[in-house]
């Protein structure tokens, strides 16, 4: 950095940044703390910040009473399944548009983007009725399918922007050396595409894990992922704060970790490459 940062300036900006960062993070921290309290302490006024009787009993109760792992497994299957299927469909499409573009490629890309703009509520009625007719309500396969379609445009877009950055010269060189398309794909493209694939996978896992329109409307119990499961705590007030906090902490912890790893790609993926 060329500009000299005076000590005073660093101290002030550091203090302010930590203060605001802490304030923004506080609700999450408060929830994690509440998950280690007894129900009485979680509800108590004045609240205790650190000096309470720490207990992990809520975590055990959540599993015992409500079969937490069943819903966690649903989340894993639905988020993982929809992301993997979307990748399988998107990789060939993005590859084709990045490396053999035609004059319609741009239109196709923008059209794909526009399908993502359709508000889900606009098609809630027909999807609900179709699912009802085919017995797909409250089924994991139904949710996998709809989340896959919902995220497909983002997956294709992200992969496309990553594939575009693979230098064309390398492909030319491989072709000159007599590589077939199959070999080119396996030995040249795949290694170079893996970072882009990984970040696409990560971002879409996060989006699918947190999706809360279709999951709330199309699942009730058997196929309910964590979003729906947590929503079931909205009924009784006050009685289950510590358990709600424990269930919530478990539900967001894995995704928080994944999210922190993928923050750079997040900007790129969510802005469709408009901000890098």
């Amino acid at each position, binding site marked *: 950095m*060329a500009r000299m940062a005076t000590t005073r*300036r*660093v101290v002030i*900006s*550091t203090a*302010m940044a*930590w203060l*605001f*960062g*802490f304030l*923004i*993070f506080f*609700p*999450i921290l408060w*929830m994690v703390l509440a998950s280690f309290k007894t129900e009485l302490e979680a509800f108590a006024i004045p*609240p205790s910040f650190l000096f309470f009787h720490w207990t992990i009993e809520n975590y055990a109760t959540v599993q015992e009473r409500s079969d937490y792992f069943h819903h966690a497994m649903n989340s894993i299957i639905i988020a993982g399944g929809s992301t993997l299927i979307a990748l399988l469909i*998107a990789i*060939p*499409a993005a590859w084709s*548009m990045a*490396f*053999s573009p035609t004059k319609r490629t*741009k239109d196709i890309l923008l059209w794909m*983007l526009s*399908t*993502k*703009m*359709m*508000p889900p*509520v*606009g*098609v*809630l*009625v*027909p999807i*609900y*009725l*179709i699912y009802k007719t085919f017995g797909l309500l409250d089924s994991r396969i139904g949710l996998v399918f709809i989340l896959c379609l919902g995220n*497909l445009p983002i997956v294709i877009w992200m992969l496309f922007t990553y594939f575009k950055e693979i230098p064309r010269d390398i492909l030319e060189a491989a072709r000159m050396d007599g590589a077939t*398309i199959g070999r080119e794909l396996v030995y040249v493209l795949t290694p170079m595409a893996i970072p882009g694939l990984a970040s696409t996978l990560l971002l879409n896992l996060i989006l699918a*894990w947190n999706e809360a*329109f279709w999951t*709330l409307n199309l699942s009730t119990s058997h196929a309910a992922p964590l*979003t729906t499961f947590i*929503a079931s705590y*909205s009924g009784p007030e006050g009685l289950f*704060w510590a358990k*709600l*906090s424990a269930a*919530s902490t478990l539900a*967001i912890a894995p995704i*928080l970790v994944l*999210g*922190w790893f993928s*923050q750079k790609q997040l*900007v790129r993926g*969510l*802005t469709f490459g*408009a*901000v890098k």
Partner: protein
Amino acid sequence: MATRQTQFLARSLLTPAVGLLFIWMIVPLALTIYFSTLHYSLLDPGSEEFIGLENFRYFLTDPAFLASLRNTLVLVGSVLALTILLGIPLALLLDQPVVGRNFVRLMVIAPFFVMPTVSALVWKNLLMHPVSGLFAWLAKLVGLTPVDWFNDVPLFSVILIVAWQWLPFATLILLTALQSLDEEQKEAAEMDGASAVSTFIYITLPHLARPITVVILIETIFLLTVFAEIFVTTGGGPGLQTTNIAFLIYAQALIQFDVGSASAGGLVAVVIANIVAFFLVRIVGRNLEA
């Protein structure tokens, strides 16, 4: 050189994705349009009949529609204003030399990864509860009367929760843009004797114009369909005070089982979203050329 063979291959690789998205877009939308012209109630099966535009007249003249349109606009507008007005200073702050910046950035971005049902319930119970919430305790500590958030200012409460979820997104995008700003340009301005304020107004802000536009458009698309936060906190109430268009359509479809009217509402939502999408697609499309 693309041979005919590779062209054929390219096209066949693209077809599954295009085909699926095409079906995904056309079939439900066509069904929505079809249902919107029917008198169709799930409570009264077998009574379906064509009624033309009657559902639209009913939906658009329903006082609930105007109320929910107003709530939708207030919700989208307020959250946009909050996230951008707080996001700009926050991004500027994080762009400064800060000790432990990476850690601070992790804290700032965390709310974005919390699933909507969790953030809504944590805010509603642990923070905003009128008796045992943390805010109530803080208010009493400084001698104020605790606010009964979801009864006295329900829409504002929802706005606060949603803004908390989206502030990280705005901040992160603005910060990414700030970090790509040419340091030398700012230095040159400072050497020419520009004050910090005029550097901000004449160099930083113009540079942020595009990312701010992108934030506005993308947030708008998601904010138009805020659902889970309302679903688990207020259920649209009290009265219609927190019913937005998405929630109104949901209520008509899955609570009142009025398929026809909900479909008409769905189409209205599609039209509103398309107006926004039109601008976003243009901006992103311009970027494709570069």
